[in-house]
C-alpha cells in the first residue's frame, strides 16, 4: 500500500467547560494524528470526554486550546470534508422526512445537478442495504436500519473523514455485528478515513487499524495501539484469534488502569 498522508491532526487539544459553579476540565492535553484512509478507534472509560473530543474535531464545539487540522487546514467550524454519525439515530434523523429525503438533505446545498444528487443518494442507500426502504420514514424502521440511514446520509455527503460517535451503542448485539462489518466494508470500498468512538473494547479492536486508549477526564491519550490483525476480518474467525484476545485483554487492562489512575489522582 502506498504511503498515506496525514489527514487529521489533533494538536494539544484542550477543552474546559466554564460554569458559575466552577470550571470542568473535560479534555486535558490531547494529541494524535490520523492518516488518509485510516480507520482509527477511540476507546476510553465512560465519561472520559469522548463526545467532547468528537465535537471539537468536527468543529461543533470550540476548543479551549490547541488545534485541529484537517488536510493541513485548521478546523474552526463544521466543514464539508467531515460527516458525522451520531449515537442517537432517533434524534439525528428527521422523522418528518422519508429515508431518501433524510439522505438527500445535506446534499441540497452542495452545487450538484439533480442527476448527480440522485446518483449519490441511490448509491449510498444501496451501499447500506436500504435501497428498498427509500420511501419509508425512519420511525418505520428498526434501530439498526435507522442507523444505516444515518450512515448512508454521511457517505452520500462524500466526506474525507467520517466521524462516528458510539453509533452502535443503542442497537442489539446481532445488529451491531452486522453494522460493524458494514463499517469495515465501507471503509475498504470507499477509502474514507473513519474516526470511530466507542466504549466497547471488543468493538474497537475488531474494527480499528489503530486504537487510541483515552484516560479518564481530563482526557489524554494513554496509548496508541496498532491492531496487527489481518485486514480481512470477520466476526467469527477474527474474534477467535489468539491475537485478538491478547489485544482486547491489553486494552481492557489499560482502561482499568485509566479508571484506577483517575481514582487515585482525584481528591
Amino acid at each position, binding site marked *: 500500500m502506498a504511503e498515506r498522508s496525514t489527514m487529521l491532526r489533533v494538536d494539544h487539544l484542550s477543552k474546559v467547560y466554564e460554569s458559575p459553579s466552577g470550571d470542568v476540565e473535560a479534555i486535558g492535553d490531547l494529541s494524535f494524528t490520523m492518516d488518509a484512509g485510516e480507520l482509527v478507534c477511540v476507546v476510553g472509560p465512560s465519561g472520559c470526554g469522548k463526545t467532547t473530543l468528537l465535537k471539537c474535531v*468536527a468543529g*461543533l464545539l470550540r476548543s479551549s486550546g490547541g488545534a485541529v487540522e484537517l488536510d493541513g487546514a485548521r478546523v474552526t467550524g*463544521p*466543514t*464539508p470534508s*467531515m*460527516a*458525522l454519525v*451520531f449515537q*442517537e439515530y432517533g*434524534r*439525528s434523523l*428527521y*422523522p*418528518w*422526512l422519508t429515508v431518501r429525503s433524510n439522505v438527500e*438533505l*445535506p446534499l*441540497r*446545498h452542495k452545487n450538484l445537478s439533480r442527476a448527480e444528487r440522485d446518483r449519490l443518494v441511490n448509491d449510498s442507500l444501496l451501499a447500506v442495504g436500504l435501497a428498498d426502504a427509500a420511501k419509508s*420514514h425512519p*420511525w*418505520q424502521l428498526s434501530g439498526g436500519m435507522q442507523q444505516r440511514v444515518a450512515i448512508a*446520509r454521511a457517505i452520500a*455527503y462524500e466526506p474525507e473523514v467520517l466521524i462516528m460517535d458510539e453509533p452502535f451503542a443503542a442497537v442489539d448485539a446481532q445488529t451491531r455485528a452486522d453494522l460493524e462489518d458494514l463499517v469495515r466494508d465501507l471503509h475498504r470500498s470507499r477509502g474514507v478515513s473513519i474516526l470511530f468512538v466507542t466504549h466497547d473494547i471488543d468493538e474497537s479492536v475488531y474494527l480499528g487499524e489503530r486504537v487510541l486508549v483515552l484516560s479518564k477526564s481530563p482526557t489524554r491519550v494513554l496509548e496508541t495501539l496498532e491492531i496487527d490483525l489481518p485486514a480481512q476480518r470477520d466476526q467469527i474467525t477474527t474474534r477467535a484469534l489468539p491475537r485478538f484476545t491478547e489485544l482486547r485483554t491489553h486494552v481492557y487492562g489499560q482502561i482499568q488502569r485509566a479508571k484506577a489512575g483517575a481514582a487515585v489522582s482525584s481528591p
Partner: protein
Amino acid sequence: MNAAAPSIARSSPRRSRLAARARSFGASILFAVGLPVLILLAWNLVAKKPDEAVGTEKFYPDPLTVGRAFTDNWVGPSFAEEALPSLYRLGIGIIASIAVGIAAGTVIGLVPWLRELTGPVLEFFRAIPPPALIPIVMLLLGITDTMKIAVIVSGAVWPILLNTIDGVRATDSVMTETAEAFRITRWQRLWFLVLPSASPRIMVGVRQGLSVALILMVISEMFASSSGLGYRIVYFQRNFLIAESWSGIVLLGLIGVLLAVVFGFVERRVLRWYHGMREVERG
C-alpha cells in the same frame, strides 16, 4: 343432506361476519345520531306550539319552526348577503392570524434576546380579552371589514404565536447539531428542521385560534356592522324574531363544525409523520 352440509359450513361464517359488520355499522349510526335525536325530541316537548299560550309562544319555538326559519333566512341569496361577508372576514382573519403567528413566533422563538424582550409584553396583550378592544379598534380603523379582521386577529393570533414560540424553542438539540455538522443552510434549516419540528405545537395553537376567531367574528359584528351573521342574530333578537335568531345560532354551530372538519383534514396531512411515529412508539 350430505351434499348440502359443506356449503352451509362454508357460507355461514361469512354470512355471520357480514351480519356482525352490519350490526356494528348500525350501532355506530345509532350512537352518532341517538343523542341529537333525543335532544330534538326533548326540545320539542319543552317548546310551545304555535296554538297554545298566545303571546309567549314566539319565545319558545319548536325545532320545526327553527328549521323553517333556517331555510327561509340562510338558504338562497340571503346566504350570500349575510353569511358570506362573515365567512370572508373569518377566512381572512384566520389566514392572517396563522401567517402572523407562525412568522413572528418563529423569529421570537429562534432569537433568545427577542424572546426575553417580548415575553412580558406578549403576556400582557394575550391577557386582554379581545372584545374589550373592539371600541378602540373601531375608533382607529372605523367600522370596516379591516376593523373586524383586526379584532379576529387580535384574539386568534395568541395561541398560534405562543405555541409556535414554544415549538420552535423545543427543537431537538441533536437534530440541530446534525444540521450544523452537515452545514445545512439557514433557510433549509428553517424549512426542513425548525418548522416541521414545531408543527405539532403549531397545529395545537391553530386549533385553539380557530374557535377564538369564530367567537370574535360574531362579537365584532354584533358591535358594529350592517351585515354578517352576528349583525343578523342581534337584529332578529331586537325584533323578537326568536326562531330566526336561533337559526343563526344553528348556522354558527355548523360553521364551527365545518372549520373543525377542514382543520382535521389539514392536520392529518401535515402531521401524518407525527401520528405515525406516535402510533409506532405506543407499540
